[in-house]
């Protein structure tokens, strides 16, 4: 077991990291000792992933120290971290789709035979042994392309275990795993622990934290706020440390009159991605689509908007069926879609704020085939004011804005089309707390004006604070429909992990 006085294998001392205007990490102090399983908790955006990136050598802290065995160290790259015996399992699988499972596990460390040639037999045997140790029956020689998220996560874990790591960092490794897979992972974690490795474990499932962690570090808004043994704590204690503020104050949900259904999704299916998804969103209603990463929520949104083609089922807006796979038809019918990744899909980063905000309304600004410059400016100014956009000049490229203000431009771009149905995917990801509240207030106001809003969110407080109704997805199916009054974290998590039979209509 861990010894509180032992020299930490890996530690951060007052580390700071900022991305542009956002301080992702304000105060990172953390130590991982031999034989210790430490939990790192915090809401999304609290800075956990930044800590993981710093410890894994992906980014370098702006200030503070990184210590390996008590000695100050600098990781210039993930290779440096790996050479120091640190294995990291990232939240999103980072695999090579074209290569075999075995090669994904062994990349850069292939077993070698004569003349430094790769020993393919040993490569496949070692991978098969690792997978067996994890208790999964995956063919080591098949390509990774086409594996489910859970299987990809298993490959990630096998990759991390394939070299004798002294420190294992796991960023939500269990999010996509089923019960028995989690149990086997924990078995492996305990074996590593007995061998004196240190483990940092990030999870949103508090019962898992109590099951395998001896110590827990809680982060909030980029800073470590507590560091203590798990023994003696309750789940409520941890939640209080994580949230640290009043939920109602953060989510200014106003009551809106619920009208007729504007968006009806009927038995929508995309094979292998999501199956038989049906629901309605009414005027004035905010419906949250909750679930774990990889449950198929964003994919449903993409299919509704027509970016991806559905294999079965259909979508109706105000009772009229949308043609399959045609975003322009969806836009014409009054659907607006704010995608998850605003940098890649929501904005043209090199264009100005003005151009980005008006790009969806060009038809209305055009006379005789030419865009009216004045009309364009007036429109952009109007939206900038309505959304309280903080900017220097409307002609600046949108890339110069902070994350929150970028998101406002994306919203302006879609709201200027005067939509009836608004689909927002992770509307506040990577946005600081203050702007978050503004985005929430805006969504709430829009619902009040009679829009039907479908909000995909991985942040449970946001879901609970904003939604009139919560739909929960698990592995491509809707596994729960919970009205606002009955929604709580536990019920949502239970449905999101597939531990409920209460299927939605």
């Amino acid at each position, binding site marked *: 077991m861990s010894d509180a006085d032992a020299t930490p294998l890996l530690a951060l001392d007052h580390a700071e990291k900022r991305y542009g205007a956002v301080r992702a990490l304000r105060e990172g102090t953390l130590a991982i000792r031999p034989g210790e399983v430490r939990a790192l908790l915090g809401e999304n955006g609290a800075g956990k992933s930044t800590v993981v990136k710093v410890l894994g050598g992906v980014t370098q802290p702006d200030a503070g120290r990184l210590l390996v065995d008590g000695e100050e160290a600098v990781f210039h790259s993930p290779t440096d971290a790996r050479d120091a015996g640190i294995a990291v399992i990232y939240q999103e699988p980072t695999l090579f789709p074209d*290569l075999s499972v075995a*090669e994904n596990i062994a990349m850069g460390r292939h077993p070698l035979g004569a003349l430094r040639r*790769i020993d393919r037999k040993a490569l496949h045997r070692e991978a098969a042994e690792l997978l067996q140790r994890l208790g999964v029956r995956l063919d080591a020689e*098949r390509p990774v392309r086409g594996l489910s998220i859970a299987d990809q996560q298993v490959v990630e874990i096998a990759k991390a275990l394939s070299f004798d790591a002294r420190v294992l960092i796991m960023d939500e490794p269990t999010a996509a795993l089923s019960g028995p897979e989690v149990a086997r992972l924990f078995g492996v974690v305990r074996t590593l622990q007995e061998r004196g490795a240190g483990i940092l474990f990030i999870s949103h499932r508090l019962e898992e934290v109590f099951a395998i962690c001896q110590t827990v570090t809680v982060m909030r808004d980029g800073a470590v706020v507590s560091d203590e043994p798990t023994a003696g704590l309750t789940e409520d204690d941890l939640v209080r440390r994580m949230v640290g503020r009043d939920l109602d104050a953060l989510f200014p949900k106003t009551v809106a009159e619920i009208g007729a259904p504007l968006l009806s999704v009927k038995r929508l299916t995309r094979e*292998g*991605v999501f199956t038989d998804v049906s629901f309605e969103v009414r005027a004035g209603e905010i419906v949250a689509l909750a679930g774990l990463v990889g449950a198929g929520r964003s994919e449903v949104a993409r299919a509704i908007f027509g970016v991806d083609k559905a294999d079965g089922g259909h979508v109706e807006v105000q009772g009229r069926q949308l043609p399959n796979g045609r975003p322009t038809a969806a836009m014409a019918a009054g659907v607006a879609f704010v995608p998850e990744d605003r940098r890649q899909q929501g904005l043209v980063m090199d264009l100005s704020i003005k151009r980005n905000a008006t790009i969806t309304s060009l038809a209305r600004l055009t006379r005789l085939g030419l865009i009216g410059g004045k009309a364009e400016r007036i429109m952009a100014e109007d939206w900038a004011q309505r959304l309280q956009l903080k900017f220097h000049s409307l002609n600046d490229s949108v890339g110069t804005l902070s994350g929150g203000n970028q998101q406002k431009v994306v919203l302006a771009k879609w709201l200027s089309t005067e939509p009836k149905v608004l689909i927002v995917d992770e509307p506040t990801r990577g946005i600081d707390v203050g702007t978050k509240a503004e985005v929430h207030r805006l969504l709430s106001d829009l619902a009040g004006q009679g829009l039907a809003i479908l909000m995909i969110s991985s942040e449970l407080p946001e879901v609970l604070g904003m939604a009139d109704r919560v739909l929960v997805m698990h592995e491509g199916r809707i596994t729960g429909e919970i009205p606002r009054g009955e929604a709580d974290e536990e019920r949502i998590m239970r449905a999101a992990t597939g531990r409920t039979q209460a299927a939605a209509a």
Partner: protein
Amino acid sequence: MSAQADTAPGVTPAPSESGAEARRLTDIVFRVRELGIVGALALLIAVTAILEPRFLNADSLRNLALNAAIFAILAAGQTLVLITRNVDLSVSSVLALSAFMAGTLLSDHPSLPIPIVFLLGMGLGAAAGSLNGFLVTYGRVPALVVTLGTLYALRGVAFLWTDGRQVNAETLPDSFLNIGTGSILGIPTLALIALVVVLIVGQYLRDFRSGRELYAIGSSPEAARLAGVRTGRRVFSAFVMAGALAGLGGVLFTARFGTVDATAGSGYEFTVIAAAVVGGVTINGGSGSVYGAAIGALLLGTITSSLIVLKVDAFWQQAAIGTLLIVAIAFDRWIGLRLDAALRQRSARRAG
């Protein structure tokens, strides 16, 4: 829906079985990828031979092998670069420089040992490749732009250097020219050299860590970085190797044709990329083999020859190659989509 119908509810099929199934499926697809092009080659030869039986005599087969040899070597180099999700357009200009250097060296110093000439040619190519590699990896300029630039710049250097002169076969030693035109046991020497190069590069890509890392980089640059692959160094080395092979191609060009001027090899870059792509090397990196690329070079050469044999207008030859390229890419994409869908459904069935 269909994913559910195959298995009774609650019964999970043995996962290893579905894994093996998926593997069998991809095995077939990958075999099809290279089989398809071998089939196309066989069909082309068969049709031409039926229409014009003389096409199959020893001389014309020798010519097929000779024509394809230099392209196969260049395509091997191009494959190294394409696999990393980059491209090298400058190969033809590198070839010209190396060809002219080899020609002038041997004209001026006929006693110079031939292996030295080969080493110098490859060294010159490697130097050009390291310029490309440096600009791509450290300058962070897209390979398309960098190598388009060096394609023109190095061709310009070739014009300045040759200054209107040309190397002629009569000034070159016979022992050198024999490499380009002679045979060993009835097989053209040039074709044997190409075969050896392709096999070496093929083995490198298949059986060595750094070779596998090239695939990893092309498949997912971000994952490669996180896996500790030194992506910059690897991409740099791919460009150097491609450059060295273009240099080798240049020396062989001189040995084969004897006559070299500043325009040597003009337009080869697109033929080489076309050969690799037709041979199943994806332009997006991460997959394809040097063997496929080499067969692709053979196929393109054979098309040209058979169109000549069949007395088809030269203008149609270009159109035929273009069509083949588009068909190959469309076929590749179609296979890819089918494979994706099949793997997706198999995983879904297993989960369901």
